[in-house]
């Protein structure tokens, strides 16, 4: 019988407290907007934070409140935006698919090394000590961007440069943040011309460090002055849409091929694969 007393005591206490909690729950329950769950189901649920919110859940809450736009999820892209518009009855929005693009062609054969690097094998660590390449703007090739990609959309090519699988890339921007040299940028997928260099060195210095560097000769600027400018020894596309298609061959006369059509790159990537 002595065994029963503690058992009964504890069960009674437990029962009492659970009763109290049930009562409190009825009084204090928080009503959640059921639409948040609906939105959650549509979202990709990778919690990458590319929308600017801390995760898919907070983004869903913001959409339901009307604080975030339906096309705010760059990962979900067009499909998710359309579904959101349909589910929540919002106004239709235009979605531009963006993909990551690497602004460097400093391949192992083209870019000279400044010394032997024996430190931690990440771009970040190498960048802290100045990098192992002569060009202090170019890709270091340790693949911090590859490491950080949640979608397996960027991989290290044989030439020591990261390559983007544009069909898999969702434009979340993680690689953009991961690159210590800010070589990767998000671009509208329809933009087909890219400057494959970030070097701000003067022409001869840049050319010495890397065969594929932009030497700021100005050929592309002369071909298309309203869209391309020279800035700090580097060509820059300011208005992509103002580049007429018939001027592209002129632009491609670039002596170091530091500017050119992206689809040629892509074709090369497919051959690599």
């Amino acid at each position: 019988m002595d065994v029963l007393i503690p058992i009964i005591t504890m069960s009674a206490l437990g029962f009492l407290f659970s009763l109290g909690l049930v009562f409190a729950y009825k009084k204090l329950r928080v009503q959640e907007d059921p639409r948040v769950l609906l939105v959650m189901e549509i979202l990709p649920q990778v919690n990458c934070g590319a929308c600017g919110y801390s995760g898919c859940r907070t983004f869903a809450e913001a959409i339901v409140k009307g604080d975030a736009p339906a096309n705010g999820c760059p990962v979900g892209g067009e499909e998710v935006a359309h579904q959101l518009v349909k589910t929540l009855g919002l106004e239709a929005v235009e979605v531009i698919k963006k993909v990551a693009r690497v602004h460097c062609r400093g391949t192992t054969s083209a870019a000279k090394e400044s010394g032997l690097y024996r430190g931690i094998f990440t771009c970040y660590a190498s960048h802290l000590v100045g990098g192992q390449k002569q060009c202090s703007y170019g890709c270091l090739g340790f693949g911090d961007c590859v490491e950080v990609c949640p979608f397996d959309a960027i991989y290290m090519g044989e030439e020591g440069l990261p390559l983007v699988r544009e069909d898999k890339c969702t434009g979340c921007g993680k690689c953009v943040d991961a690159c210590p040299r800010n070589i990767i940028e998000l671009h509208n997928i329809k933009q087909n011309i890219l400057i494959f260099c970030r070097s701000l060195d003067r022409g001869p210095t840049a050319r010495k460090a890397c065969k594929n560097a932009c030497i700021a000769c100005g050929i592309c600027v002369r071909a298309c002055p309203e869209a391309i400018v020279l800035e700090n020894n580097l060509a820059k596309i300011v208005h992509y849409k103002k580049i007429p298609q018939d001027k592209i061959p002129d632009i491609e006369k670039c002596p170091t091929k530091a500017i050119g059509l992206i689809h040629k790159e892509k074709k090369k990537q497919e051959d690599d694969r």
Partner: protein
Amino acid sequence: MELVALFISAILINNFVLHYFLGICPFLGVSKKIDSAFSMGLAVTFVMTITAVITWVINHWILLPNNLEYLQIVSFILVIASLVQLVEMFIRKVSPPLYQAMGIYLPLITTNCAIMGLALLAALKNYSFVETVVFGVGSGIGFTLAIILMAGIREQLDLSDVPEPLKGAGIALIVAGIMALAFLGFSGMIK
């Protein structure tokens, strides 16, 4: 007079965080901003006071008459867990931003040893009902005081030049140690 002494000693001399080193987890976890530290202190004070009351009732009315002292820990845990659930529901209802700010540390009050320590200490020292309540409130205020002081110091620390390896937890622990030393100065104030 004795009650006043007990109250002050619970706040300053036998401060749970800085004397017994109990409840260090929320003390370090939620002491980044003064206002969230203050609300954490309030939540802990509330749970401590109610815990002190209920555990006294359970201890003296149910456990002791039936010679069930060995159930103290289990039943006290039950009380604390239910109370924390209650507080959590309440805060979520009243202030969602506060609920977000406290995050995981709110349910972790359940496993906050300061509260368990309070219930067990009060039972061990055989306090009367009034003494237990005073002890509970005092300890809660003591915890609040410690966590607010800590938060104030850490807000200043954010602006100062801390050596790289000590940033974050390292300097926080050092600060906590120095605060404990400073609070040692209060001992001897009351016998």
